[in-house]
C-alpha cells in the first residue's frame, strides 16, 4: 500500500498513513501502514486535499512520494500538477515560512486543474513546473499587477522547467515532480533564505519498475547515480 510490503488482516484501531484519521483497520502491512476506507475510494483531488491539509511533514519530497504511491494517482496524469503546489504549500505552512490558510490548498487545486493534460508537449510548460509557480504565487499573494512577487513566481517556473527539460522524454510525471520539488527548495533557500530541515533523495525511483515508458539509465532518478 505505502511501502509495498505484504498485507495482513487486523481489527485494531490504526492511523491512516495518508490523512491521519484513526479507525478500525481491516488490513495493515508488515510496517504498520494503513490506508483508511475513505482514502482508498478518494479521487486524486480529495486525497491531495486531505493529505496536504493534515500533514505535519516539513519535507516536501516525502509528501509527494506518499501521495504518488496512492493508486488514485495514475503513473502519469494532470493530478501531478497540483500535487507539487499542494505539497509545497503544506510544508511552507508547517515551517511557518508563509502564512498559508486552508483555502490555499483549494486554490492551488483549482489553478492546477486548469493546466492541460500533456501541457509539457503541447505548450512547452510542464504542469509540475507550473505547480511551483502556483504555490509561490499563492504564498506571496502575487497577481499580474505585482512586482517582485510576480517576477519570483515566473523565475521559479522558469528554473524548474529548465531542470525538467534536461531529463528528456517521453515525459515522466514522477521525474518532473522530483525535479520541481528539488528546484523549488533550492529557489526558496536562495531567494527567501529558508532552509528545509531535510529533503529526501528520491533515488532510486520507487516507480521505476511500474512505468512502462521509464527512461531508465537516461533518467537521473532511475538509480542512485549522481546526475541530478
Amino acid at each position, binding site marked *: 500500500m505505502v511501502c509495498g510490503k505484504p498485507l495482513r488482516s487486523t481489527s485494531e484501531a490504526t492511523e491512516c498513513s495518508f490523512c491521519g484519521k484513526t479507525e478500525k483497520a481491516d488490513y495493515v502491512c508488515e510496517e504498520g501502514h494503513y490506508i483508511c476506507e475513505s482514502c*482508498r*475510494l478518494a*479521487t486524486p483531488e480529495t486525497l491531495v486535499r486531505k493529505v496536504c491539509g493534515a500533514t505535519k511533514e516539513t519535507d516536501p519530497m516525502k509528501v509527494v512520494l506518499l501521495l504518488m504511491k*496512492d*493508486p488514485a494517482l*495514475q503513473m502519469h496524469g494532470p493530478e501531478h500538477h497540483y500535487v507539487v503546489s499542494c505539497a509545497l504549500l503544506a510544508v511552507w505552512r508547517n515551517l511557518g515560512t508563509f502564512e498559508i490558510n486552508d483555502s490555499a490548498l483549494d486554490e492551488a487545486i483549482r489553478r492546477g486543474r486548469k493546466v492541460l493534460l500533456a501541457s509539457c508537449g503541447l505548450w512547452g510548460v510542464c504542469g509540475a513546473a507550473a505547480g511551483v509557480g502556483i504555490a509561490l504565487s499563492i504564498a506571496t499573494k502575487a497577481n499580474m499587477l505585482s512586482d517582485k512577487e510576480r517576477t519570483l513566481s515566473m523565475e521559479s517556473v522558469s528554473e524548474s522547467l529548465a531542470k525538467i527539460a534536461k531529463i528528456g522524454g517521453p515525459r515522466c510525471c514522477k521525474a518532473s515532480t522530483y525535479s520541481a520539488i528539488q528546484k523549488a527548495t533550492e529557489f526558496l533557500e536562495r531567494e527567501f533564505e529558508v532552509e528545509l530541515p531535510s529533503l529526501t533523495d528520491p533515488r532510486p525511483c520507487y516507480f521505476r519498475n511500474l512505468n512502462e515508458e521509464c527512461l531508465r539509465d537516461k533518467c537521473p532518478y532511475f538509480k542512485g547515480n549522481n546526475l541530478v
Partner: protein
Amino acid sequence: MDQAINEAIFRSRKENLTPNTLRLWQGPASVIIGAHSSYKDDVNHEECRKHDVEIIRAISVTADLFYRDMGTLNFAVTANAALFKTRTKDYPPVLSDYFVLNAAIVEGLRKFSDALEADANGIHIGERRMTGTLPKWFHDFLLFQGTLLVNTDLDAYNRLIKTGRSLEKKLMMTSLSRQLGRDVSIEEAKTALIDGFEKKLGIIFELKKELTGDEQKSADLLYRAKYSLEKWNVYGIEPFLVGMGKASLEVFVAYPPTSMCRKLISLVNDATSDLQNDITVRVWMRGKGIYQHGVYPELSSALVDAEKCSRIPAIIINGELKFDKTLPSRECLRSAVVAALPQKIGSFF
C-alpha cells in the same frame, strides 16, 4: 455470419485453441466496412438496397472498406505475430507485418503475372489495386482479413463504395481477370494463395473444412450478440465480450477492498453463481496494473475510464458502466447481467 466466424477463429487463436490459420471463402455480394468507417457516408445505400447488398462491419484498426461478390476470393489470416517476425526484417519497419502477408499473396500470384507488387496496404499492379485489407490486433495476435478481386464486378464496386478515402481507392481498383485479359477461376486463385503463404512463411497448411466445436459456438454467440445487430453494423458499438465470446462483468474495487467493495464482490458472486458458463467475472483492483488477469489483459475502455475518473467501486457489464459508487440491489444486478448474456442480447431486438 462470415465476420462472426473470423472473430471466432481470432478469439480461438488467442486462447491457444486454434493454430495459425488461413481461411479462404466466397460469399454473396456485400460491402465490408472497417470498425472506424462511416456507415452513413461511405456506402451508397440506395444502390445497396436496389441490388440487395448487405453492409457488414468488421473488426479492424483501420477505416478501410471494400465491396465483394462471388467473383471475389476472401481471405483471413489469424496468427501470432511471431510467425512473421523473422521475415519482417526484409521490409520497412512500419507496418512490416502487413507487408509480409501481402508479399506472400504476391508470391502465390506470380504464376499469373510478374508485374504484381505488394506494399503494406495491399497488392497492386501499376497504379491499380487488387486487394482490400482490414487488420485487427489483440496484443501479439493479428487477424488480417481481405479480399482478392479475381472476377469481381468492378462497376458494382464503383457504384456501391461512395465517399471519403475510398473514393480515391475505388477508381484505382482492378481485378486479376481484367489485368490478365482472361477469366481466372476462384479455385486457381485459391491454390495460388495457399502456395504463396506456404512459400513465403515456410509453413505447410493442414486442410480443414469445418470449424471446431468451440469456434462454431463462439461464432453463433458473436453473430447473435454483435454481427446481426444494427448497434454494431450501423453505429459501430460492440459489446465487450471476453475469451471465446462470453459476456464480461468487470468489478472495479479499491486495493485492498474496502467493506463496501467486499460487499459488492460478494453480491456479484451471488448474483452470477449459476451463470459461470456464460459470463466471465473479473475483479480489478485499483492501482494493481493491467496484468492482474494474465499476460494478455482484456479490459474494457469503460474500466479504464472508471480508473481515470475514480468511479470506484464500479460494475461494468459487456463494456458498459452499469453501477458506480453504490451497491445495487441483487435484483437490479441480476437483471443487468442476464440481459447482457450473448444468447439473450439478440432477443431484445
